[in-house]
């Protein structure tokens, strides 16, 4: 075992910086594959809503205080019944920092799609940097670089980034920084050389983490709480100064409402709904011991999250990294220095949070999504298992063996993980997964030629993705559609429509002659030829109604 010593930040070398930049550019190349060749937005429902809100600010050059009247795309959330209760004034329902950043990048990049998605890719892939920062600070450059490198291939992170759970992805980035800052502060208190600067920076980081998404704040808070208990037991002292903690709480309590005054009321309403939903017994009963000793044993299944999300094999490219994870855990448990306790606390804290049902606290339907945060613990511990494997054995060629194991592991990652990640990014939302070129051209024409705030009925586009993304691309107009219907019939704004889109492009893509004929018949009934304003390849037509 290694000598127990407090880590000092090793000076960063040129070689380390070069490796850091080269590996990150490789990561960014992979993560930007979905929009390198086709400048067309993509993602699930959340993604289209977030794009819409940001694109509205970019398009109008105005900050968004109230949610615009594009209720069809915004009202699709399963929480829509709660929406009126939570947000009666119809204020922007996120802290403004989230969408403002996207809009700023659209403005500065002078491009709605590249500005949005490149910023998104840079921020989401920055998990490489924050995990590197934490692990480098604790265990040195090699463990730091290896941990960051593994995060590039984290399936959980890749999925959230591609699907559109970006609030979660953003709040996630802060966790390594929050853990590091608290570790540095508590260490300084234990060493009786208190450095309050870490406490104040921690308070600021927690403010912004909370604003981007409160979930990460609570998960990180749970981990810190466990670490504090373990540290207090080990060091037989309270690892913080009450006065400084009070100042930090004050900073947090003042800045959060100051930075999101319009959202504070809805925030408490949202928390109320979330807490109430936790009380509903949405989870099925699982055996007590199965839950107690199970990590993924989710009562009630995935609740909208695919089953493969709860399988180590599917999320970590098979079981080949499992031995390293176990070695890493063994290293932490045997060594138990303060930094080891910090990393162990992430596991213990996460286990407690995901097993609260064992002590009668119901977790609600959405809690399996918390597993998104698992990779931030597993990958650094896997990296630790790789770099510390030789610390269990003492012999002459120890150092050579250590580097041979690291090199072998990196090669294996490149051969196994890259092989899966590359096609995942390269084919993300291909085909009907996003708007087609004709629809993009049509949206550009509408933006330039149809008056703002017009209501436009959309006929033809049969998938919700097409409908929602078309709305997101023309943020200053209101698209009237019914989810997954070819002809809208229920939308409350149906009688306000002054324009009509006949979108044949989906049927042309599949060469569906029956669909084309059916749509043509509809067109004949609903429109007059002389009201045709725009027609591209007979696939996307815009008519003036009345």
């Amino acid at each position: 075992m290694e000598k127990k010593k407090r880590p000092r930040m090793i000076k960063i070398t040129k070689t380390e910086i070069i490796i850091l930049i080269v590996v990150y550019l490789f990561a960014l190349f992979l993560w930007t594959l979905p929009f390198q060749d086709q400048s067309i937005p993509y993602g699930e429902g959340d993604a289209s809503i977030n794009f819409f809100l940001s694109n509205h600010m970019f398009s109008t050059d105005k900050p968004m205080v109230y949610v615009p009247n594009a209720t069809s795309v915004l009202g699709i959330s399963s929480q829509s019944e709660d929406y009126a209760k939570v947000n009666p004034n119809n204020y922007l329902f996120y802290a403004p920092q989230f969408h403002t950043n996207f809009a700023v990048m659209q403005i500065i990049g002078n491009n709605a799609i590249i500005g949005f998605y490149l910023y998104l890719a840079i921020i989401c892939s920055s998990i490489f940097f924050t995990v590197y920062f934490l692990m480098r600070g604790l265990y040195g450059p090699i463990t730091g670089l290896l941990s960051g490198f593994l995060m590039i291939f984290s399936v959980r992170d890749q999925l959230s980034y591609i699907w559109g759970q970006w609030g979660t992805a953003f709040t996630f980035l802060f966790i390594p920084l929050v853990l590091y800052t608290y570790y540095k502060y508590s260490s300084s208190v234990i060493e009786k050389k208190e450095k309050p600067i870490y406490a104040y920076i921690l308070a600021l980081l927690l403010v912004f983490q909370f604003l981007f998404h409160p979930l990460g704040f609570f998960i990180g808070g749970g981990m810190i709480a466990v670490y504090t208990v373990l540290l207090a037991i080990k060091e037989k002292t309270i690892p913080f100064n009450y006065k400084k903690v009070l100042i930090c709480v004050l900073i947090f309590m003042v800045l959060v409402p100051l930075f999101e005054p319009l959202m504070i009321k809805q925030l408490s309403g949202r928390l109320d709904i979330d807490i109430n939903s936790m009380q509903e017994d949405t989870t099925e009963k699982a055996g007590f011991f199965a839950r107690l000793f199970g990590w993924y044993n989710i009562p009630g299944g995935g609740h909208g999250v695919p089953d493969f999300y709860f399988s180590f094999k599917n999320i970590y490219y098979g079981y080949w990294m499992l031995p390293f994870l176990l070695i890493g855990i063994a290293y932490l448990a045997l060594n138990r220095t303060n930094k080891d306790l910090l990393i162990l606390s992430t596991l213990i804290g996460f286990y407690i949070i995901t097993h609260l049902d064992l002590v009668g606290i119901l977790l609600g339907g959405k809690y399996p999504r918390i597993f998104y945060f698992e990779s931030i613990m597993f990958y650094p511990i896997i990296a630790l298992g790789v770099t510390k494997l030789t610390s269990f054995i003492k012999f002459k060629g120890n150092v050579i063996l250590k580097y041979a194991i690291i090199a072998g592991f990196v090669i294996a990652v490149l051969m196994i993980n890259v092989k899966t990640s590359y096609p995942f990014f390269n084919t993300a939302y291909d085909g009907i997964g996003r708007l087609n070129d004709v629809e993009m051209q049509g949206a550009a024409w509408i933006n330039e030629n149809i008056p703002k705030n017009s209501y436009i009925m959309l006929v033809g586009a049969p998938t919700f993705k097409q409908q929602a993304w078309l709305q997101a691309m023309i943020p200053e107009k209101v698209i009237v559609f019914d989810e997954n219907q070819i002809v809208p019939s229920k939308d409350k704004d149906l009688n306000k429509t002054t324009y009509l889109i006949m979108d044949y492009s989906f049927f042309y893509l599949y060469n569906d002659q029956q669909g084309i004929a059916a749509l043509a018949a509809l067109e004949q009934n609903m429109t007059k030829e002389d009201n045709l304003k725009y027609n591209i390849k007979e696939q996307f037509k815009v008519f003036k109604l009345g």
Partner: protein
Amino acid sequence: MVEIKSKYVYAALVLIVLAFFFWLFKLNGLLIIAGIFLFFFLPYYIIMKNLDLTQPEKIFFSFFIGWGLFPTVVYYLAIVLSSMKLSVLVSFLLLLTISLILNWKLSKNKTETTS
């Protein structure tokens, strides 16, 4: 072995990064990476470099505080100015000015303490 001077290595790395963004996203890519550096990093680093922190800490804390602070200022200023574009520019200049003044004060204090 001939040691290559750090400044040449860092200059080469900056060029590689810029070339990467230009290669993939042309001028839009360059503007975005420049925007991220200027808006989310520079003003806060100017202050942070005076604090008793390690270099990586200064870099990481600057970015993550700037990433939250910059849009806050932009958003509320944009409500007053009624323009996002104008607000981006004014916010940047405002934050940069504040950081330069604070930097000047902090470095002046440091010099007085050491002398």
